[in-house]
């Protein structure tokens, strides 16, 4: 065994990081670098692929192989990288505009195919690089330079899309909580298949405080539910609140009130194939519910890149054609002999 002890430093490139001071991207990158350092994967086997947007500058700041591509297409490019070499650890960095607007089609198909790629979706609910237009995750009525009177459309909820596309892994984190981010990135990396991690990210310039209702230290305990597989879904400063499932709906209850005990509280099963409860957790919004964080869904399923290699292996076990010469001479061929002076095409 080669000793693969890396530190965060081993994953930083020489390029000067040019995100705005205070941007949430710094913390997310730090968590990614910490995760990679601990994965036991040789440095040269990482490939970081991004599209276009502030977050997509990410590969330049990494010391790994990296490819900063074009708007919306990172999912398809990352797919090509992984299929060409399934041995690589492929990370895709994208934003709400890149993955859910211009790249929506590639996003859902990457998830549906379940290609083993770790997709980190920076969700700041704004177009930052183009200086502040509303995005497909901006709330209805959101005012921006291109919606001065408020938008008249509803946003995507990224986890809904992932579930709708038959996603096998969905997690949510928040930029400021590096520990949580690292923990879900580690789970995403371990998961075989497409892992989608939505990170709520703050754009200090164009959408500052967009997630502050969730992150507010005074209310954080009541407004965030950190899900852990096998553990009860409790939250609140004293873990005094929990979730129950009644009449096909989630409900917040107080433990010890109205006859609810800790035994009534739902226990998180991220591996449940039926997505009903996962979807309900993803949909939880303030003020009626806390926002769910952590690994919400993590189920096993056939993985495209592995199946592709398996199919090639199976066909090759039984193959009759082993090289191009054999292919060219397979099927109907005939010999021409005894012709001395062939016609020529010359005029």
């Amino acid at each position, binding site marked *: 065994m080669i000793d693969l002890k890396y530190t965060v430093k081993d994953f930083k490139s020489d*390029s000067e990081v040019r995100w705005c001071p205070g941007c949430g991207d710094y913390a997310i990158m730090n968590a990614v670098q910490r995760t990679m350092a601990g994965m036991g994967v*040789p*440095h*040269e*086997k990482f*490939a970081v*692929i991004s599209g*276009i947007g502030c977050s997509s500058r990410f*590969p*330049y700041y990494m*010391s*790994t*192989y*990296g*490819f*900063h*591509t*074009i708007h919306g*297409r990172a999912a*398809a*490019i*990352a*797919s*090509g*990288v992984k*299929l*060409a*070499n399934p*041995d*690589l650890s492929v990370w895709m960095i994208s934003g709400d505009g890149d993955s859910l607007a211009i790249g929506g*089609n*590639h996003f859902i*198909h990457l998830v549906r195919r379940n290609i083993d790629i770790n997709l980190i979706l920076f969700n700041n609910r704004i177009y930052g690089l183009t200086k502040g237009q509303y995005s497909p995750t901006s709330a209805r009525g959101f005012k921006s330079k291109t919606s001065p009177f408020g938008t008249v459309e509803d946003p995507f909820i990224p986890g809904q899309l992932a579930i709708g596309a038959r996603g096998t892994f969905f997690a949510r984190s928040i930029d400021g909580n590096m520990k949580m981010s690292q923990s879900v990135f580690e789970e995403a990396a371990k998961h075989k298949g497409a892992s989608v991690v939505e990170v709520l990210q703050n754009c200090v310039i164009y959408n500052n405080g967009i997630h502050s209702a969730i992150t507010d230290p005074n209310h954080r305990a009541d407004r965030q539910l950190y899900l852990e597989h096998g553990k009860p879904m409790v939250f609140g400063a004293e873990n005094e609140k929990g979730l129950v499932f009644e009449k096909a709906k989630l409900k917040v209850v107080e433990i010890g009130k109205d006859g609810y005990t800790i035994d009534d509280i739902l226990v998180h099963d991220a591996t449940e194939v039926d997505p009903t409860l996962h979807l309900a957790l993803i949909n939880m919004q303030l003020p009626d519910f806390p926002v769910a964080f952590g690994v919400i869904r993590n189920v096993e399923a056939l993985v495209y890149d592995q199946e*592709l290699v398996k*199919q*090639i292996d199976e*066909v*090759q076990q039984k193959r*009759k*054609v*082993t*090289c*191009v*010469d054999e*292919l*060219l*001479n397979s099927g*109907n*061929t*005939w*010999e*021409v002999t*005894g*012709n001395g*002076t*062939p*016609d020529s*095409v*010359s*005029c």
Partner: protein
Amino acid sequence: MKDAKVIELEEVTIRFSGDSGDGMQLTGTLFSDATALLGNDISTFPDYPSEIRAPQGTVGGVSGFQVQFGKRLVNTPGDLAHVLIAMNPAAVKANAKFINPGGTIIYDSDSFNERNMKKANFATDDAFAECNLEDFFKIPVPISSLTKESLKDFGLDNKSVLRSKNMFALGLVCWMFNRPLDYIEEFLNKKFAKKPVVVEANIKVLHDGFNYGMTMQHMTPSYLVNPAVIENGTYRTINGNHATAWGLLAAAEKSGRELFLGSYPITPATDILSALSERKDLGVKTFQAEDEIAGVTSAIGASFAGDLAVTTTSGPGLALKGEAIGLAVMAELPLVVVNVQRGGPSTGLPTKTEQSDLLQSLYGRNGESPAVVVAASTPSDCFWYAFKASQIALERMVPVILMTDGFLGNGSEPWKIPTMAELPTITPRIAKDPDLFKAYKRDPETLAREWAYPGMKGFEHRIGGLEKDETGTVSHDTENHQLNTEYRENKVRRVADMIPELEVCGDGDGEILVVGWGGTFGHLVSAVRELRKEGKNVSHAHFNYIKPLPKNTAEVFGKFKKIIVCELNTGQFASYLRNEMPEFKYEQLNKLKGLPFTVDEVKQSVYKLLED
């Protein structure tokens, strides 16, 4: 028994034509393959509607398959058919203008009823008079009822019985042209191996058609076309799309790279995707993407990861891929883009041929975005140009657009099978020394950068669509952008060092040079050959390399008094040549009918130019 009239011919053109559900493509293909196996040279042209099943019996639903075969080398599927097989009145109407004067029309007389005449929009009950075909030799054969009679003891339903009527026509044509039936029988046995009744029924009908010709020989002339004198070797028939697929496979094997195809189905390019999907045995990875953009971008990803990466498409798909091809230009990654051209703009004429994507291939991207553009000129040489496109991409770290077209892609011809040993080596520019590696350090001769891909230790680097300096670091420096723009353009131009010079067919100087590119080769060479036989001072130069042009192009052009550029568009190559070499005057012959040139059209335009 009376002796049948036997006509000996140099070359014969046959057109099978019927409803798109009548199995005319299969009939034509089987006849062509049986003919090629006899040693005739062939060239085929499937001409089918874009609807899978247009309304039955209508002119819009007519599907045709034309084949020319001969005792000499055959370069085109023929201008006009000597024999037309028409399965219904609509087929007569659709093909009236494609029959050789004095040609023979064999038709299913059963289908010439009031209903079908009406469906084909005939006003009277005489289809031939309405189409001015009175002087043609017409052979009515009650194909439908003879097929029913033939299969009456098989216990098949009416629909299944009538599905076999194409075999009756095929049997009859095989008799007319002295083709043995064994190849066709073998095919049927294989194709319907699981349905012995179907095999038996089809073979019965095939033989009955053949015997019908023999019995009724007082009315059908039999043609004899002796085998062509062609070079010794092992042959097979191949169409352009298969040849393209196999050329890519050959390049992958030769270069030691895995082959990756990212593609989205589109007529008429889809056959390349299916042909390569069959080749898991050779380790090909095919990826049917969610759209055209994902087709090319997945390929770019695979190229970044070290594969010989390809995307295949047709005109509208090329438009969608434009931005991504620009990324390959900027990232300087090897990429092969195959464009099987069809009639445009927009959805245009999906099943018809055209050469109208030339300027799109050259210029259809944002910014200064040069790519190599190569064009195949016959169905079988698609193999060679797919190989060559891959070689250029891998050795020069550049996207290469390979142009074929619907006529080449679907057309087939006999092909002398090459061996891998005789193909040139391909040496991808894989980086060797991590200490000396810089992402955009260039070879001083070719200007190509080195290729290092994930998994190669010590070469970790970042690339992207932003302008960069030699190390790959993003650079907005103005001088650097100018320099890199010139590098990218000159890198493409220096590909001229690895392509052959332009050859002239005929004399190296003279009155008229007929210039063409890509899929018009067969018709142009045939026309020039006939003109030269007539003593006309005409030569032919055909381009397979569009960007860059062969180095000696100006030298060749300078030796002729007149240059006529013939192409299936409004003059795209001519305008490109005017831009590249404004010192010459270019006459034009253009056609936009969704069809190849005819030899005669080319000759007429040259006659006119000789008179001027």
